[in-house]
């Protein structure tokens, strides 16, 4: 992933072009350069001028401020899809059934994976899964839950990852493009419990694998449930011997850090029910207190 908001404009060119199924020649002609110059732009070897960027945005139908946010975000809620393509991007068969996790949701795990594995190994991983890394710049595009589970498994097996290593996730949260166009300002002025409410209200922009509901709330705490949607019925995400309860831990950390990263004191989360630890429960229930 890019190191900051403005170092990946070249990749945005490629992502936007592929998303709209355009050739380099078509884009080059539209923005008034020859194909080889455009190719250099996509590789980050040539400057992009503002006029060219505006013409590109017009052609590809992408927001002008995508360059500022480091991603292409149409602000659309997740809709479950089974499509094997996203414009010109091919979605591997393993990840195209019940696509309900948006790249907005996956961005954090990818940043974290880049931190654990190193960017080269992460690229190798994506290549092995037949996924184009620029696809992940389309914030609202989706894959199924198996992608995140596969990545978590890889982290467990191939890196120095330990159970406690997930706490490094906050490092990735400082990246501008996390949350897409929410950028650095998302949830900035709110207290953590308001942030939890806001996160739950916005969860459909992240994923549709789980139903998030606030069960109780007052000024000191929020109790919320996370229940798997029906389509996860065939997935073995709760009983994988390698993953164990890591996905649950990851979700909890995501919740905790997403909603309190601007606070000096993080929220405390107590898990009242866990569907990964007992077959009795059909959901996870978290009590979040300030």
């Amino acid at each position, binding site marked *: 992933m890019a190191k900051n*908001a*403005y170092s990946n*404009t070249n990749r945005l060119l490629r992502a936007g072009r592929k998303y709209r199924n355009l050739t380099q020649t078509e884009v080059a002609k539209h923005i008034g350069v020859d194909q080889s110059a455009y190719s250099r732009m996509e590789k980050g070897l040539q*400057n*992009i*001028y*503002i*006029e*060219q*960027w*505006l*013409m590109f945005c*017009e052609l590809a139908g992408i*927001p*002008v*401020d995508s*360059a*500022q946010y480091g991603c292409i*975000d*149409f*602000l659309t*809620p997740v809709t479950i899809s089974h499509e094997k393509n996203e414009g010109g991007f091919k979605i591997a068969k393993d990840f195209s059934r019940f696509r309900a996790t948006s790249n907005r949701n996956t961005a954090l795990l990818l940043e974290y994976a880049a931190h654990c594995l190193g960017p080269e190994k992460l690229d190798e991983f994506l290549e092995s899964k037949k996924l184009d890394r620029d696809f992940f710049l389309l914030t609202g595009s989706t894959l199924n839950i198996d992608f995140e589970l596969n990545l978590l498994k890889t982290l467990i097996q191939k890196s120095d990852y330990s159970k406690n290593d997930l706490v490094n996730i906050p490092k990735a949260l400082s990246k*501008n493009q996390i*949350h*897409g*166009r*929410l*950028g650095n*300002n*998302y*949830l900035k*002025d709110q207290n953590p419990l308001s942030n939890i409410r*806001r996160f739950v*209200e*916005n969860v*459909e*922009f992240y994923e549709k694998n789980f139903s998030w509901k606030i069960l109780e709330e007052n000024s000191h705490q929020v109790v919320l449930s996370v229940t798997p949607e029906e389509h996860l019925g065939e997935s073995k995400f709760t009983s994988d011997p390698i993953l164990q309860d890591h996905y649950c831990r990851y979700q909890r950390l995501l919740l905790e850090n997403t909603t309190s990263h601007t606070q000096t004191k993080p929220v405390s989360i107590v898990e009242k029910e866990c569907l990964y630890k007992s077959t009795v429960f059909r959901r996870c229930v978290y009590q979040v207190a300030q």
Partner: protein
Amino acid sequence: MRISSGPINKGKVSVQVKTVLGQIRETLQIDPSEWLELLELTPKQYQSLLVPRAQVPLEVILRVAERYNLSLDSIFRNQIDFGVLAQRHQGNTSSIPGRYLPAAYSRTQTARVVFDFLEKKYGSFQTVAAARYLQISVQELIQKDQPINFQFYMDLFGYVHRSHRPKTGFYLEMGLHSTRVNKHGHLGTLFGSLESSQVVYEKMLGDLMPLFEKNNAYQIRKMNSEKALVRCDQNEEVASALKLRWIGSRHICEWKRGVFAGLPGYIGQPAASVRELKCVHRGDSHCLFEFDYSRRLSLN
């Protein structure tokens, strides 16, 4: 200064951007070396950038936008309020851009409903992006009810429309949301005890509208137990202060249709069917709304 809601003028954008950069530097009194450091340019590169026909690399603008929390779109449109920028730089986040202050006959409370609806449709993302674009703090705008002019709503709606190209009926639905939000507030209490939709319309359009805004004058032309015909004339003083022939936009008219169609909701009735028989944005001299509360509004 008015925000242009149309496409950015690509032919002039480099010239405009250079002007904006110069104004930012001047407003914030940024030292030349600090400025070059921010732009990541050598003095020679900066000099060649100032040549009139020289194009501006996107990355230069991105650095400035990021540092001063400005929207890229607003830089390209040359619509930064430098007074607000200076105040923000000094830590004051509550100031409202000067363009929203002349003829400030609306209330910021109205924006609460609009932002609430936008959050429901597009998530908090939209609020953050719109606030950056308009150079406002949504929190402060909503918490402290203060006067604001109609240009603010025109800019906000223009931004939303440009960002999302919403489907027909979007603004109508946004207007209907007003009843859902206000039903549990003062208006809900006030209207809740009224006996019919006709009385609600009479009360709202006849008595209360002048208290909410002075941008338009509403006049009930005909009314019976089934229908109301309402004429809306703009306040010429506002149009003149905002240097506009017509205030509002066709999207704002659609939003108003929704706001008024939803009035029967305060007494538990379905939204009224509504038609805009005349509209200033279609070339008429005034807007004319027909509300038929004997028929349910169809959003299709």
